[in-house]
């Protein structure tokens, strides 16, 4: 059963070796991502699966290799977070970044990866998500997902008047655990707006089945013209069956 999920951006500039700019904004964004993952870890998951957009839908095991080297001076990395000196890089950028984020927070538990094709229908995404809902044990997801890359005239995709509203709606859905709203996001509009997060977020909507959820929207800005979300969804802490046990990551 899914017990927690974090949403983080898929931007290579999260990696300090790639983005050398001294930037308070980036430092803050990285801090929020770490906090989101700390919150997920505090839910004591048995495994964390990284979900992100990719050229095709595929699952990956812990030893699968990814690489940030196509974007600059960076190492190849396994989903486990270990440096990979051998093996062909097969992970898409989103999962490589997810592996990097997990390594950053020192996650040494079980990991997996799911790449979701951008062309996947909302129904496909829900089906993929349901697998995690049904999986035995305490399952967590790290969802690598962005809003529109068309948030300003300086944005990678230039400016589109629909982009800000699109991102606001996604942020509101994340803040309210509104699965219906996430599933309403139109794949075609998302593609037009260069929003890389539509499919992975709909996987999340499929995985987070009923029950109580507690949401924390930790970041929702577009400092480089791309909408970034940092958020967590957690089932209320059930420490030995005690609902509402204070969560150390919240302090």
């Amino acid at each position, binding site marked *: 059963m899914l017990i927690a999920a974090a949403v983080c951006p*898929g*931007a*290579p500039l999260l990696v300090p070796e*790639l983005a050398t*700019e001294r930037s308070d904004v980036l430092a803050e964004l990285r801090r929020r991502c770490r906090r989101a993952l700390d919150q997920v870890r505090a839910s004591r998951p048995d495994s964390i699966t990284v979900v992100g957009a990719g050229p095709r839908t595929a699952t990956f095991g812990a030893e699968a290799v990814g690489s940030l*080297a*196509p*974007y*600059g*001076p960076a190492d190849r990395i396994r989903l486990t977070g270990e440096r990979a000196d051998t093996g062909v890089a097969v992970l898409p*950028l989103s999962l490589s970044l997810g592996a990097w984020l997990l390594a950053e927070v020192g996650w040494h538990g079980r990991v997996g990866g799911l790449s979701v094709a951008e062309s996947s229908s909302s129904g496909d995404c829900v089906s993929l998500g349901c697998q995690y809902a049904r999986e035995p044990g305490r399952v967590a997801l790290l969802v690598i997902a962005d809003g529109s*890359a068309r948030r300003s*005239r300086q944005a*990678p*995709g*230039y400016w589109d008047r629909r982009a800000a509203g699109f991102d606001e709606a996604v942020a509101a859905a994340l803040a309210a655990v509104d699965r219906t709203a996430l599933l309403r996001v139109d794949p075609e509009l998302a593609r037009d707006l*260069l929003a890389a997060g539509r499919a992975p977020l709909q996987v999340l909507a499929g995985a987070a089945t009923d029950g109580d959820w507690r949401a924390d929207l930790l970041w929702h800005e577009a400092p480089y013209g*791309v909408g970034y979300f940092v958020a967590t969804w957690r089932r209320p802490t059930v420490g030995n069956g005690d609902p509402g046990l204070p969560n150390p990551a919240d302090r």
Partner: protein
Amino acid sequence: MAIVNRTPDSFFDQGATFDFDAALSAVGRAVGAGADVVDIGGVKAGPGEEVSVAEEVERTAPLVHAVRARFPTAVVSVDTWRAQVAEECVDAGADVINDSWGGVDPGIAEVAARRGVGLVCTHAGGQQPRTRPHRVGHDDVVGDVIAATVRLAERAVTAGVSADSIVIDPGHDFGKNTWHSLELTRRLSELVDTGWPVLVSMSNKDFVGESLDRPVAERGDGTLAATAIAAWLGARVFRTHDVRATRDVVDMAGMIRGTQLPRATRRGLA
């Protein structure tokens, strides 16, 4: 190769030569400062207001015609990705088509072939014209650039363009991040080794700006440093906003390499 834009919105000149007379004066200054080639553009490279084919022709072709008449020895190039604009500019007297978006319109090579003019074959990473790179990765950026530019050059030869009228351009910043453009510059000799003459278009671009953390107006020194290194590594054409300085840098690099004679030696020789 001097950049003269008849655009209201190009990133560096910000419309300074949009006006016809201002553009023609800029050409005069560039030729006076030692430009061999004048590259005339009518659409900014970045995203912005849509410019129709008719509008682009209106901006470029009359200027090409005037430059042809007033500066008969200058090589006139037109910076466009559209075959129709290229054709109109060749009618007006252009000698070279600078296809800086990497062959998105295959008709461009056919125009160059049919009309017997030169062609710049550029790597733009498959980007559509006037789009910015977004998380573009290259396993081997130099390999990608060589493969794409040589393919375009060979396609042009097959279409009938004279092989000695073709140059290749790695397309700094086009479909590339700063790491990619730095690596391309560092390994430029590998492009030179293809045998095709290499054109570099680096003037005041973002890879210079990001490398030195300088805004657009303060990238001249960085551009010249890159120019010196590209010249040393064998580039042959340098597209620039600053002709006088570029001419000196390129000549100096040639003199240090020993491929060019110094202009006025006297010291210790009296």
